């Protein structure tokens, strides 16, 4: 026997990991996204009218925070932002006590970004509230994987309002870069193969250890970006997370030479590839500026899908039918 007792289950409206979503769950989120998107703004604003959503951010964020906040507001919810820089967290209050305080103040759902992997699990267990994981340490960013999935469906001309085990059949997604430290890579690598995609992870060994194969039985590793690109329908690039490189030495010039997504590489190996990046981007490092702004890029579209997907996640969290 290798495991013993189990931890209590979280609220069904929580989204802590993509692994907690069934394919029908994913399909329902996509369908709800499409329904909400099609609603006139006044009707949409009634969905969560009077409901209270707290955004608890222990890490700085632009797109995820704004996206969740605008999504909640567009649904009529009252939002409050609590950050570690301007709250009792700075005085040493624990995550558990912060969560309980927010609950006592009437928060009905908490959106949490935290630099510690697993923090959303803890908050969900301690408060019993629906918790939406907006990125936890090096662990997961499940709403990002959902918005990436929707972006792929729309850009590849597939049905954007439903999901199945084969909806990405024939699509090869190459995820390149600092996979060791990337929560976006983990969520995508665990979700996309379940939807039929072939996922190839690409990067040098220090940033892509062989343990990454454990994310899904179908995951592949390819160290050569050119070889990976020649098979790619989607090239998802990741930022080098310098802040998390403790103990690792990385030759940036060699990295740029081997793994930067350039116009020349695309022209040579994958002229039609869909270019994606979860941001923030470091132009000139993992991606050439011309590529980020070029015709293959879906980077801005990803952000737009993020807002849409998060409306559906909020509605789901608060148990409202949309």
């Amino acid at each position: 026997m290798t495991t013993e007792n189990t931890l209590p289950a979280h609220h069904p409206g929580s989204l802590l990991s993509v692994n907690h979503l069934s394919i029908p769950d994913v399909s329902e989120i996509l369908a709800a996204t499409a329904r909400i998107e099609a609603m006139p703004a006044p009707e949409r604003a009634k969905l969560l009218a009077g409901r209270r959503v707290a955004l608890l951010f222990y890490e700085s964020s632009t797109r995820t925070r704004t996206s969740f906040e605008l999504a909640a507001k567009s649904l009529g919810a009252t939002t409050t932002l609590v950050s570690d820089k301007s709250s009792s967290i700075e005085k040493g209050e624990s995550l558990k006590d912060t969560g309980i305080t927010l609950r006592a103040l009437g928060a009905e759902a908490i959106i949490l970004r935290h630099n510690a992997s697993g923090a959303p699990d803890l908050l969900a267990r301690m408060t019993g509230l629906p918790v939406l994981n907006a990125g936890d340490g090096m662990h997961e960013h499940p709403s990002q994987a959902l918005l990436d999935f929707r972006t792929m469906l729309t850009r590849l001309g597939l049905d954007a309002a439903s999901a199945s085990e084969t909806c990405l059949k024939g699509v090869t997604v190459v995820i390149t870069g600092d996979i060791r430290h990337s929560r976006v890579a983990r969520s995508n690598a665990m979700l996309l193969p379940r939807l039929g995609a072939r996922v190839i992870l690409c990067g040098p060994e220090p940033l892509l250890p062989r343990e990454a194969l454990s994310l899904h039985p179908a995951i592949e590793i390819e160290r050569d970006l050119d070889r990976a690109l020649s098979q790619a329908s989607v090239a998802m690039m990741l930022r080098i997370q310098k802040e998390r490189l403790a103990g690792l030495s990385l030759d940036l010039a060699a990295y740029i030479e081997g793994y930067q997504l350039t116009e020349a590489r695309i022209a040579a190996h994958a002229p039609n590839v869909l270019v994606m990046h979860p941001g923030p981007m470091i132009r000139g490092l993992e991606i050439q500026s011309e590529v980020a702004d070029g015709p293959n890029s879906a980077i801005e579209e990803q952000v737009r899908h993020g807002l849409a997907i998060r409306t559906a996640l909020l509605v789901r969290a608060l148990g409202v039918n949309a």
Partner: protein
Amino acid sequence: MTDLLIRNAHVIDPATSLDAQKDVLVREGRISAIEHPGAFTTLEIKDTIDAAGLALAPGFIDVHVHLREPGQTWKETIATGTRAAAAGGYTTVVAMPNTVPVNDTVESLTWMLAPERNSAINLLAMPAATQGSLGEHLTHYEALAMGGAVGFTDDGKPILDDHVMRAALVTAARMGLPVSQHAEDTRLTGGCSMHAGPVAFRLGLRGMTVEAESNIVERDIALLREIESDEGLRPHLHVQHVSTAKALAAIRQAKQQGLHVTCEAAPHHFTLTDDALEGYNTNAKMNPPLRAETDRLAVIEAILDGTVDCIATDHAPHAAHEKEVEFERAPNGITGIETALGLALRVLHRQHGLPVAHIVALMSNNPAKIIHLKDRGSLKAGNYADIVLFDPAAEWTFAAAQSLSKSKNTPFDQAPMLGRVHATISEGRVVHRHGTAR
């Protein structure tokens, strides 16, 4: 009048190769005699225990527990920790020095061992090997040995510096005592909170490699060899809570070469793997961490082939609020003093066929030898009457809420156990019986 007669017990005493139905007579806190059932009928006896159906063994000895006193009494005290130990069948425990302040002086050692601490059983201690457990300057070994130290350790931390470790081994060897090493190269484990492997990768946590443990073990063994040849001394290295196949292979080889190395294994390392951390279960967070299945099986193999000398719990209580934090911030350690027998019998005996007598040896006779206890760890006449009575076939479920420890941080809450302690007798006194302390 005789103090106590225990009748009809299945007596298991590996030290005297006794494994038979017997009556045991206790007089003035010592084992007086062991004879065939009914042999003592003519005596006038004050107290009798009918132990039919129960195994009777030397009280268990744990060379590695944390009792948190002084300084962290909200987690545990010597009184509560030793009551919990008695519930687990233990009659002697060795307290580690990472208290607040660190137990690194004769004064603190004397304070810890004083009767005022209300230990329920025989309490011993290993004071710090270096001042403040900082790994720089040795503590006063001679004075500490005179004060009752049974070894020296910076447990919780390794002695990293080669010269300091060499000096510790040499100095302790002159006292005839072991240096007990927490084998972790902390230069390789900064920011790590679990075993390095696929589970850590999936959870997004930094992992400790097996080399972080084996490198220190290999270094220490090299020091033993060097000291034996250079100084003509025979130092004793005791490796704590070994968790990796690689470190066990190094220990096995060192033993074959005749070096004085002993080691302990913890029940959690032969029962669980890093899978237990799924869901960020801080009650399964410990150091050394739960490892891969190959390492778990290597620990079991090393127990079966005698490489592992004893079972030690590393009982490490922490309050609930301390574990209810982000995984990486949670303190290492689990309680374990009440579940050791139940897990050893379930995993080692039932699943891997280790005879009950061998488990008794791992929990009583062998640890007594490691810390040189002459009159404990076996049922020889004249020894202290340290006795555990247990039902080796009893199947039960452990409930953390009913633990006698102040803390309940265990991954074994509601876990099945095999073998239940019915009574614990320390120096002739019944200190625990049927779930209640006495």
